[in-house]
C-alpha cells in the first residue's frame, strides 16, 4: 500500500486528512477505503459553509409551509361534518390523484388529513431539495473544473459524493426532526407525538432516497443540469405512479417510493416498516452511485464523448437554428415527459367517471364546480399540473441567455453581426414555441388516452384545445424572465416564482381553499379552465399582450446595459 509509508512521513504535516491517513490501518482493504474517503470531513464542512443560507431557507420554508397548512386545516375543518364533507370530495379520482391513498379517508381527522394531502407533496419537495444538493456539490463542481483542483489535494475518490450525501442526510434529518417536534407541539387533535415523529422521518427517508437517486444520475451525464433533470424525472415518475395507483390499482403505487411513504398511514396506523423499504432502496441507489463513479473519469459522464460534424450546417448557423440546437436536449426530454404525463392522467380519466357515477351527492358537487361531467372537471384540474410542468421547461429555456452570458459564451456571439435583440429573441422564440409544443404534446397524450379510457372520442379535441389555452400563460412566464434578464440579470432566477406560485396556488390552493384573489396573481389563474368551463378569449389575448410587453421591456433593458463578462 503506497499510501501508508508516505502517510507516516506526513504525520507532522498539516490537517486532519494527514492525521487520519497516518493511523495504522487494520487491513489493506480498510486503508484503501479510508483513502477513498480522505478529505470527506473537510468537504462536508465546506459544503455546509457554502449552503449556510440556502439549506436553512429550504428547511424552514418546507417546515413553515407544512405547519401553516396544518393549522389552516384545523381552522377550516373544525367540525366533524366539514371533515366528512371534505373526505367525500377527496374520495374522487381527482382528489385521490392529487393527494394519497383512500385508506386515510376512513377516519378523516386533521392528522389523517395531513398525512393524506401533505405527505405526497412533501416528498416531492424534499426530493427536489435533495437532488439539487447532490448535483450542486458533485456534478456542478466537476463541470466548473473546481473539482479538479480539489481532487488534486489529499482528497479521496469518493469524498465528494460522500460529503454531498452527508449534507443531504443532515438537511433531511434537520427537516424531519423539526417537523416531528413542531407538529406534535401544535396540540391539534389527531396530530399526536408518535405520528408526528413518523411524519417527520418519512420526509427524512424519502429525501435521502432521492438524494441517492441523484447520486446515480450525476454519474451518468457530464452536465449538472442533465443530472438534476434526470433525477427530477424520477421524482415525477414516482409521483405519477402513486397517483395512478391510488386511483386505480393499488399495486401500481407499490412501485413508487412516494407510494411507500404514504403507506405508513401516518396518524392513522403509524406503520414504520415502509420507511425501512425506502431506506433500503436509498442504500442500494447510493452504493450504485459510488460504484458507477469509479467507472468514469473526473469531469466525464459514463458515456464517452463522441466526435461530431466538422462543419456547421446551414440551419445551425442561423441565430434561431443555433438557439434551437442549444435547447434541443431539454426540449426532447420535456416533450417525452409531457406526453407520458398526459397519457398517464388520461388513462385514469375512465376510472374517474366510473367511481363517481351513482354517488348523487358528489355529482351535485361537481355540478356546482361547473363541469359538464366528472371527467371534464377532473381534466381541468389536471391541465394546471400539465401547464406547471411545461412552465418549468419554459423557465429553464428563458434562463438560457443569462447562463450563456455568465459562462462567457455570449461575448463572441455578440461580437459578430448578431444584434442583442435578435440573440435574446432567438432564445425567447424557441422557449415560447417549445412551451407551446410541450402543452400540445401533453394535450395530445391526455386527450388520446382520455378519449380511449372514457370511450368518449369527442374528448380528444376538447382536451387538446384546453391544453393549448395555457400557452399564453407560458409566454407571460418567458416575458417575465426576459424582463428580469434585461433589467436585473442577477435576479433572473426569480422567474422560478411563476411555476412555484402557479403550482402552490393553482393546485394546492384547490385543496387548501385559498382565496381567489391569490389565483389572480398567477398567469395560470387567468386561463379559462377548459373543458369544465367555457372558453373566453379576452384573458388569453390580454396574457399574450402582457407577454409581448414584458419581452419588449426586457429587450430595452438589455440594449442599455453592459454585457457581463468573465
Amino acid at each position, binding site marked *: 500500500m503506497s499510501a501508508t509509508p508516505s502517510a507516516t512521513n506526513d504525520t507532522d504535516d498539516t490537517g486532519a486528512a494527514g492525521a487520519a491517513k497516518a493511523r495504522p490501518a487494520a487491513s489493506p482493504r480498510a486503508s484503501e477505503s479510508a483513502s477513498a474517503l480522505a478529505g470527506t470531513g473537510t468537504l462536508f464542512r465546506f459544503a455546509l459553509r457554502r449552503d449556510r443560507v440556502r439549506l436553512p431557507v429550504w428547511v424552514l420554508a418546507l417546515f413553515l409551509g407544512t405547519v401553516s397548512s396544518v393549522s389552516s386545516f384545523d381552522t377550516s375543518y373544525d367540525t366533524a361534518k366539514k371533515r366528512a364533507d371534505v373526505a367525500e370530495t377527496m374520495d374522487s379520482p381527482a382528489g385521490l390523484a392529487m393527494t394519497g391513498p383512500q385508506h386515510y379517508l376512513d377516519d378523516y381527522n386533521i392528522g389523517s388529513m395531513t398525512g393524506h394531502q401533505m405527505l405526497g407533496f412533501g416528498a416531492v419537495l424534499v426530493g427536489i431539495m435533495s437532488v439539487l444538493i447532490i448535483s450542486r456539490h458533485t456534478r456542478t463542481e466537476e463541470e466548473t473544473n473546481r473539482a479538479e483542483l480539489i481532487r488534486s489535494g489529499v482528497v479521496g475518490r469518493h469524498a465528494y459524493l460522500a460529503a454531498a450525501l452527508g449534507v443531504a442526510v443532515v438537511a433531511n434529518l434537520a427537516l424531519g426532526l423539526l417537523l416531528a417536534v413542531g407538529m406534535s407541539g401544535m396540540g391539534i387533535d389527531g396530530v399526536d407525538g408518535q405520528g408526528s415523529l413518523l411524519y417527520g422521518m418519512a420526509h427524512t427517508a424519502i429525501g435521502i432516497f432521492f438524494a441517492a437517486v441523484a447520486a446515480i444520475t450525476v454519474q451518468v451525464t*457530464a*452536465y449538472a443540469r442533465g443530472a438534476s433533470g434526470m433525477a427530477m424525472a424520477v421524482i415525477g415518475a414516482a409521483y405519477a405512479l402513486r397517483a395512478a395507483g391510488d386511483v386505480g390499482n393499488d399495486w401500481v403505487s407499490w412501485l413508487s417510493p412516494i407510494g411507500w411513504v404514504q403507506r405508513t398511514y401516518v396518524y392513522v396506523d403509524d406503520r414504520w416498516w415502509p420507511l425501512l423499504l425506502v431506506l433500503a432502496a436509498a442504500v442500494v441507489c447510493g452504493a450504485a452511485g459510488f460504484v458507477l463513479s469509479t467507472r468514469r473519469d473526473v469531469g466525464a459522464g459514463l458515456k464517452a*464523448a*463522441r*466526435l*461530431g*460534424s*466538422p*462543419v*456547421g*450546417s446551414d440551419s*445551425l*448557423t442561423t*441565430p434561431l437554428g*443555433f438557439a434551437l*440546437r*442549444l435547447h434541443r*436536449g431539454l426540449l426532447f426530454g420535456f416533450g417525452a415527459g409531457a406526453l407520458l404525463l398526459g397519457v398517464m392522467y388520461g388513462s385514469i380519466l375512465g376510472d374517474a367517471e366510473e367511481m363517481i357515477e351513482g354517488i348523487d351527492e358528489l355529482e351535485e358537487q361537481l355540478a356546482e364546480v361547473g363541469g359538464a361531467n366528472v371527467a371534464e372537471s377532473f381534466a381541468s384540474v389536471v391541465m394546471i399540473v400539465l401547464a406547471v410542468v411545461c412552465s418549468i421547461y419554459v423557465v429553464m429555456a428563458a434562463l438560457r441567455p443569462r447562463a450563456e452570458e455568465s*459562462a*462567457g*459564451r455570449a*461575448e*463572441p*456571439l*455578440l*461580437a*459578430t*453581426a*448578431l*444584434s*442583442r435583440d435578435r440573440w435574446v429573441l432567438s432564445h425567447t422564440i424557441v422557449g415560447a414555441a417549445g412551451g407551446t409544443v410541450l402543452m400540445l404534446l401533453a394535450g395530445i397524450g391526455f386527450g388520446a388516452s382520455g378519449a380511449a379510457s372514457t370511450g368518449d372520442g369527442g374528448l380528444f379535441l376538447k382536451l387538446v384545445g384546453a391544453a393549448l389555452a395555457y400557452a399564453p400563460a407560458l409566454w407571460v412566464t418567458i416575458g417575465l424572465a426576459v424582463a428580469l434578464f434585461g433589467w436585473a440579470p442577477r435576479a433572473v432566477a426569480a422567474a422560478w416564482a411563476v411555476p412555484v406560485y402557479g403550482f402552490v396556488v393553482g393546485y394546492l390552493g384547490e385543496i387548501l381553499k385559498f382565496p381567489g384573489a391569490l389565483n389572480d396573481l398567477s398567469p395560470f389563474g387567468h386561463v379559462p379552465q377548459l373543458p369544465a368551463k367555457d372558453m373566453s378569449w379576452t384573458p388569453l389575448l390580454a396574457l399574450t399582450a402582457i407577454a409581448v410587453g414584458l419581452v419588449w421591456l426586457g429587450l430595452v433593458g438589455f440594449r*442599455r*446595459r*453592459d*454585457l457581463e*463578462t*468573465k
Partner: protein
Amino acid sequence: MTKAITVSGLTKTFGRTRALDGLDLDVETGEVHGFLGPNGAGKSTTIRVLLGLLRADTGTAQVLGGDPWADAVTLHRRLAYVPGDVELWPNLTGGEAIDLLARLRGGIDKQRRDDLIERFDLDPTKKGRSYSKGNRQKVAIVAALASDAELLLLDEPTAGLDPLMEVVFQDVIIQAKAEGKTVLLSSHILAQVEKLADRVSIIRLGKIVQSGTLSEMRHLTRTTIEAETERPATGIEELPGIHQLRTDDSRVHFAVDGEHLDAAVRRLGEFGIRSLVSHPPTLEELMLRHYGDELEHNGHHSEAGAA
C-alpha cells in the same frame, strides 16, 4: 492615413474599481498595433468597449468611423474578435463553432477556413468540452481569420498556444497585414508583440503610459546579456548604457539599453564569444523600471520586500 480606432478620454468603472481612467488610443488603418499591459491593466475592458459590449462612462471611441455602442451590429460585420478567454459550447464541435461565429459575422471563406484548420492542426470534429485551452483559442482564431474582416481585435490570442502554433499565428498575422487588415493585438508579453507590431501602446491602471513605434521606444528596452568568453571580458563598464554588470572569470552578465546593444556585443566579440544568451526585457521589468517610484509609493515595494 485614416485611423481605424480613435479613443479619447475613455473611463469605465465597475462598482468601485476604475478599469479605464482617461484612456487615449489611436490605431492607424493597416497597421498591427501592439496593446501592451500587465494583467488587469484594462486591455480587455478597452477591447470590449470597442466592441460595444460595454458602454463607457465618459470619453469617446470611434471604430472604423462608427460609434461602437450605437453601430455595434454594422461595425461587427467589418471586424473580428478573439477573446482572451475562449468559452465554447460543450455540445458543439469546433468546426460547428467556427462556422457559426463566422457566418453570424456575415460569411466565411471555406477555402481559407479549411486551410487555417490544417495550419493550426485543429481537429474540428471534437466537442467543445473536450478541447484544451489552446485548442479553444485556435477555434476562435480560425473563426476570426476565416471571415473577411477589415479589423481584427485580438485579446491575448496566443495565451494557450504552444511555441509551434505561435509561429503559425505570427505568419497568419503577417499575411493579414499584407492583405491590408488592421490588427489590434493585446498581450502582456513584450517579445510577442515586438515581432509583429508596427506601433505599440502601453497601458497601465487604465491609462496609456507610452505610445509609439518600436524604434521610438527602443530607449525603453533593455536587453540582458549572459556570455562566456575565451578571455575574461574587460572594459565593458566603460561602455554607455551598461547596467548591473557582474563578471566571473570567463562569464559576464549585464543589462544594456537597446540603443547601445550593438556596441556591447561588438566589444564582447573581441574576447572570443563561446556562448551568448540574451533576454529581451519583460514588460514587467520595463514597467518596474519606469514606474518603480510609483509602485513603491503605492506600497507594492514594501510588500515585495516583506516577502
